[in-house]
């Protein structure tokens, strides 16, 4: 079935509302996406007809809820080419990364003299947990810098990722620059030195086909709310989760409990202490089905066309510059831009007056802003439901912002 954005748009009721008297132009999906009716219906149907706590009871609803929850795990696992028991439901990417950071720390993987490697383009969620792990263990944090084009500077890859590196954590697609990294090259170097790899896929999984086995990583993290599912559910995929000790202790993650101590359930339950996110996980599976039906290749092609239109349009505007790659080659759909002489907050506020939603600020990637010498950027990010009219409205809006602020 060909991809028809106007058909897709009908599944998103929010797109028919107005903001400040203008039709909503939602270009903030890299921050959080909207949810289509089929996903909302799936969650509602589950909650209305099958809801109960999971893994606890013998009654019918308890069994149905457990089946739905575990079936959601299978759907999410196969969506990224993984197996059922390799998927842990978390709250978000932040929790997924912290889970690995604490588990590796608890296992005693790191100490003084060991190194953790990240990149300068990480979202704070894939940076701060490693800074904290380094602090707890005495390990050293190192990072790959960026080129002026917003690519990873790989000239010193072999020095930065070396025999002391225990873990290499990096994003697949930058949320601020849009840059897509060459995972294969980075994983190959990590394997040469025997380092574990963790990839932040928050900006990749919603937008393009991802197969964790062909990426050959050890851990992969992503989140539901950026891929048409509700907030509150994230995912950690791990190749060998049973080799890790628990992160949080509590109900559900145990095998036997005595006053003197406990033993732990196998993965993935070991990492899901307490009542998990049940209906959100069910909705995430529905979102995976929805995206699969559209086709991830189709989605990627659709977004590339919009991104190219936006990059071309900005290139024609005086006084507007893009941070990050200027073409769609190895690039996601998030486009950060700076309007000369107008602070990004003022850009965002003025665009909102026209009904256009973009994100402004440092996008939880403050070191990237510092690297490029700007305090903040405005960022437009498109998704399955955006069309050419949205991009044209933004380009027109930027010109109106310039007129207002130069008056």
């Amino acid at each position, binding site marked *: 079935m060909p991809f028809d954005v106007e058909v897709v748009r009908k599944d998103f009721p929010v797109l028919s509302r107005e903001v400040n008297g203008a039709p909503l132009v939602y270009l903030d999906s890299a921050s959080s996406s909207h949810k289509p009716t089929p996903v909302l219906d799936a969650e509602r149907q589950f909650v209305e007809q099958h809801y109960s706590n999971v893994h606890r009871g013998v009654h019918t609803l308890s069994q149905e809820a457990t089946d739905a929850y575990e079936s959601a795990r299978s759907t999410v696992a196969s969506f990224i080419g993984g197996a059922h028991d390799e998927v842990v439901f978390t709250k978000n990417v932040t929790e997924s990364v912290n889970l690995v950071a604490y588990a590796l720390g608890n296992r005693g993987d790191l100490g003084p003299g060991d190194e953790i490697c990240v990149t300068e383009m990480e979202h704070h969620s894939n940076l701060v947990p490693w800074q904290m792990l380094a602090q707890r263990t005495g390990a050293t944090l190192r990072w790959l810098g960026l080129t002026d084009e917003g690519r990873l500077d790989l000239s010193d890859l072999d020095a930065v990722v070396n025999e002391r590196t225990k873990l290499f954590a990096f994003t697949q697609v930058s949320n601020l620059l849009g840059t897509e990294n060459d995972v294969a090259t980075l994983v190959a170097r990590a394997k040469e030195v025997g380092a574990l790899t963790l990839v932040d896929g928050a900006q990749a999984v919603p937008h393009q086909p991802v197969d964790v086995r062909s990426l050959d990583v050890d851990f992969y993290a992503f989140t539901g709310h950026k891929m048409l599912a509700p907030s509150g559910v994230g995912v950690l995929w791990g190749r060998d989760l049973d080799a890790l000790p628990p992160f949080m202790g509590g109900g559900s993650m145990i095998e036997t409990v005595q006053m003197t101590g406990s033993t732990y359930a196998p993965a993935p339950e070991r990492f899901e202490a307490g009542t998990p996110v049940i209906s959100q996980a069910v909705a995430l599976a529905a979102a995976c089905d929805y995206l699969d039906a559209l086709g991830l290749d189709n989605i990627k092609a659709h977004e590339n066309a919009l991104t190219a239109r936006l990059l071309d349009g900005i290139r024609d505007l005086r006084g507007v510059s893009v941070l990050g790659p200027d073409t769609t080659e190895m690039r996601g759909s998030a486009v950060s831009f700076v309007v000369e002489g107008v602070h*990004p*907050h*003022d850009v965002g*506020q*003025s665009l909102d007056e026209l009904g256009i939603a973009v994100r402004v600020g440092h996008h939880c990637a403050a070191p990237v802003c510092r690297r490029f010498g700007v*305090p*903040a950027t405005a960022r437009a990010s498109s998704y399955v439901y955006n069309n050419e009219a949205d991009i044209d409205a933004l380009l027109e809006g930027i010109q*109106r912002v310039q007129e207002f602020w130069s008056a």
Partner: protein
Amino acid sequence: MTESLYQEIILEHYKHPHHKGLRDPFDVEVHHVNPTCGDEVTLRVKVNGGVVEDVSYDGHGCSISQASTSVMTDLVIGKPVDDALTTHEAFLELMHSRGQLEPDEDLLEDGIAFAGVSKYPARVKCALLGWMAWKDATSQALSSDQKKDTA
């Protein structure tokens, strides 16, 4: 576009800020940031005999934060500290009013232009950046003054 937020007075202070640039002498220097957007201000205060003798600052940020800091310096420089603190309180109250308060022009002068900002919760922190930095610096200046007095 955005007339209720971006009043002419705000744009004027943004384009031509008053008292900008760091100056000597000063008692206390503080550095405040708005972590959600990365706006920053470095601000110095000189208090002499219970009077705000000078406030100087440097920083970068959006029109609201820059204009608000400029207006603040107009309102506090040369005033007795107690009066300046009263003005500070009034501005704080205005910013938290969600557009429901009629501002006192005698007290806030150009500051009344920010009444509209209070309707935009995401921007209130921008408007308060310089004001909170001034309050912080002034409190520190006063407490170090007291220590000197009691020493």
